[in-house]
């Protein structure tokens, strides 16, 4: 399995605050990998560094064995990696179609071709009926999809999704999860930041857990769920110990509530 | 030629300090408006021009010495600024940064051409009985009006500082500058504070106009001269910093004066634009500024 993204020892401080400490991770081609962790753990900072929006203090990022550390985002996009934003960034007064076309224009200079590609991508994410709607008028779910579609239109090899499910209701989440699976099946590797545990478990082949800027665990979702460090990161110090001390029935109850609770 | 430059240097520096204190006053208004309202008041130069005319007509029609005229022009300017913001700028801009820029630009066009229409393009100055008297400091001669203007602006800057730090209004303004929503939550009428702040900024222009008229002149386009100067000072000193405006004012005043001495009248002006461009490029927060 080819290593698509290789992140080596990234550190970043803001003034005295160490946002990311010596974080290393990798993403295999064709997989869906997730980056999870409590709020403020440094996930978006790490994303920003990987995608070229922020400079790291130390460490390197490799895409397809090429050193992309410090490259500007548009060049990284040329290399095949594109990101979406946690707070959606639509081209507000343009229509859905025009928004997606901007992404499509990366690979063609012809308006007709861009339009065609954009229409195809819109169909893939289920936005065909919204093509002429102004981005401003879309719902949160619509904007999230638009963000996804726009990035997809650039024909990336690696898609970085930053909390694409935040603000969605359960049925919308199910839809997006499906769409992401379809995208993965079409050959795109996906690396996502997510809080919604249900999605993480359903989608990821592999997960990394970040807490306070440090990668505290990684593995398959099953392995992660049972990792005491991870439990403590989400539920507080001593939680893991407290949970193992409980009777079997009580432990089971707290485990399921942990899975469904964090969103 | 060199020795002329060297011998005139002290005079140039003093001259720069004198004008610098008035520039500081102009910049103070601008930085205050930016610091609190977060808007770039493009009409600043034109409003200074109006203040100059106000001082001029108080003298030419009513015979009031500009230095006394401050007592009338400053409150008048405050009211004018308050009303202008409350009923025009604040209402029409709908909150977008570039809208305010264009609206204040529009206002400056209106003011400039109204002045042209009503006052004609003639340059106006005032010649007071003591306009040409000087004080001999030994190494340099200082004209009395410049000296009065210098000290008066320092006093006004001090009064402004007292207003901002010791009065309730000042505290409210600072609260709004720091945390708009929070200020609303504790019951401060933010819209009124905005208008009051704008009013104070224009009041600074009122004072500056009275202090400037005896040592300068006014015509409808005088405002344009001061737009770049004022913005350079504010950017140099740091947007929103009162200390920065003061120090920046002196730096720019001296730069202008010394630059004029070394490079000649016309080319000397270029120093200000160059400083402005360089600061924006390399240190947009200025000397004392916080966030831009």
């Amino acid at each position: 399995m080819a290593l698509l993204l290789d992140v080596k020892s990234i550190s970043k401080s803001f003034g005295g605050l160490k946002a990311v400490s010596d974080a290393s991770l990798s993403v295999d081609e064709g997989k869906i990998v997730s980056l999870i962790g409590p709020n403020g753990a440094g996930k978006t900072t790490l994303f920003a560094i990987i995608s070229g929006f922020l400079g790291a203090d130390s460490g390197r990022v490799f895409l397809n064995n090429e050193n992309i550390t410090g490259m500007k985002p548009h060049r990284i996009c040329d290399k095949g990696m594109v990101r979406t934003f946690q707070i959606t960034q639509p081209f507000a007064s343009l229509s859905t179609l025009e928004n997606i076309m901007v992404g499509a224009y990366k690979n063609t200079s012809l308006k007709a071709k861009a339009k065609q590609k954009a229409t195809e991508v819109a169909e893939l994410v289920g936005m065909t009926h919204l093509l002429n709607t102004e981005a401003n008028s879309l719902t949160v779910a619509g904007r999230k999809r638009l963000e996804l579609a726009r990035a997809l239109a650039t024909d990336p090899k690696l898609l970085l999704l930053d909390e694409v499910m935040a603000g969605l209701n359960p049925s919308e989440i199910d839809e997006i999860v499906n769409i992401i699976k379809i995208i993965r099946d079409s050959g795109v590797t996906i690396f996502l930041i997510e809080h919604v545990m249900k999605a993480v478990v359903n989608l990821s082949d592999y997960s990394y857990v970040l807490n306070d800027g440090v990668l505290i665990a990684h593995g398959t979702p099953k392995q992660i769920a049972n990792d005491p460090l991870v439990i403590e990161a989400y539920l507080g110090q001593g939680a893991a110990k407290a949970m193992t001390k409980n009777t079997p029935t009580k432990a089971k109850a707290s485990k399921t509530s942990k899975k469904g609770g964090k969103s | 030629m060199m020795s002329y430059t060297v011998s005139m240097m002290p005079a140039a520096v003093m001259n720069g300090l004198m004008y610098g204190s008035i520039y500081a006053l102009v910049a103070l208004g601008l930085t205050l408006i930016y610091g609190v309202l977060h808007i770039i008041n493009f009409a600043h130069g034109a409003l200074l021009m109006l203040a100059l005319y106000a001082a001029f007509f108080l003298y030419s029609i009513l015979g009031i010495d500009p230095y006394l005229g401050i007592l009338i022009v400053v409150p008048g300017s405050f009211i004018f600024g308050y009303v202008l913001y409350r009923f025009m700028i604040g209402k029409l801009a709908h909150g977008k940064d570039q809208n305010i820029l264009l609206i204040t630009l529009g206002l400056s066009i209106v003011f400039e051409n109204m002045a042209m229409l009503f006052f004609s393009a003639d340059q106006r100055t005032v010649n007071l009985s003591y306009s040409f008297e000087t004080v001999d400091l030994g190494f340099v001669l200082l004209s009395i009006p410049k000296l009065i203007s210098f000290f008066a602006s320092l006093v006004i800057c001090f009064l402004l500082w007292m207003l901002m730090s010791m009065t309730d209004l000042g505290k409210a303004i600072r609260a709004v500058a720091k945390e708009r929503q929070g200020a609303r939550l504790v019951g401060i009428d933010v819209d009124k504070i905005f208008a009051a702040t704008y009013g104070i900024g224009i009041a600074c222009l009122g004072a500056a106009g009275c202090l400037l008229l005896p040592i300068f002149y006014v015509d409808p386009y005088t405002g344009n001269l001061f737009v770049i100067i004022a913005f350079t000072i504010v950017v140099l000193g740091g947007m929103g910093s009162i200390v920065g405006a003061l120090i920046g004012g002196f730096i720019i005043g001296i730069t202008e004066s010394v630059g004029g001495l070394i490079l000649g009248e016309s080319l000397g002006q270029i120093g200000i634009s160059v400083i402005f461009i360089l600061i924006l490029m390399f240190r947009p927060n200025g000397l004392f500024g916080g966030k831009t």
Partner: protein
Amino acid sequence: MAISISRWVQMGLLVLAVVLPLAIQNNFYLDVLTIIFFTAYLGQSWNILGGYAGQFSFGGVMFFGTGAYASTILWTTYGIPPIYGVFVAILAGAIVGLIVGYASFRYGLRGSYFALITLAFAEMLRIIANSLEFTGGGVGIFLNFEPSIMNLQFINARGFYYLSLGMVVISIIIAMWLERSRFGAQLIAIRENEDAAEALGINVLRSKILAIMIMGGMGGAAGTFYAQKYLYLDPPIAYSIALSVEMLLVTIVGGMGTVFGPLVGSFVLHIVTEVAKHLIESPGLSLIVYGFILILIIAYLPNGLIGLFKGLSGKRGK
């Protein structure tokens, strides 16, 4: 491929504009139209950077003045005819655009800061022109009246009319090209959201600089036109803030980011001026009205007059 109604209308108006001088012998009206086209042309140059790319310049006159000086000095000092000189003017304008664009955009200046720095650059150029000998300093440069195509000078108003008509048509074609090209879509993306544009592979810095260079080149040509028509150039004329303002004014009034916005805005503003001049004999009045119109448009009609028209017709356009 059917030609839309609006396309027929545009063709019709163009034909009308071309044959107009045959019907109207009155130089005055031809001259007014010439000025309208000239201002619309300059407005369109502002529109490229301001309307489409969203970067509001307050110093657009710097390209005009530099171009004017370039072709004028080449002619008066070196004898090179303006028909060649205009290309140097275009180049000069583009280079100024490159320098100013790099200084501003490379260092992340946006919004009001960008507007202010363009103002400072224009002011700087004015001071330099005022102090240099070979630009004639404060005295300025007088141009000779030697009408010929080579000199881009004409005996009657008709010649200048066609020249300015040609310029404005070219500027409209440039805008039309922008609206259907990838580059234009990228500029619009930058206007709407720079970070998102960058993330999608658009080289934001390069695109902005390219846009300001186009604006600069267009402005430079306008400078040559002006110099050859009015036969006098000095720093206050070459670098006047009033022209910077007029450029943005006609575009905002007509509709930023539209193909015909600058032309519509130019027509409206100049008609208003002429009417005002008839009603009240005073110099500053039209400009006062300009200022008010700017304020009102920004406050109530931010998409300009064309936006109003589109709203009425129901179409979203583009």
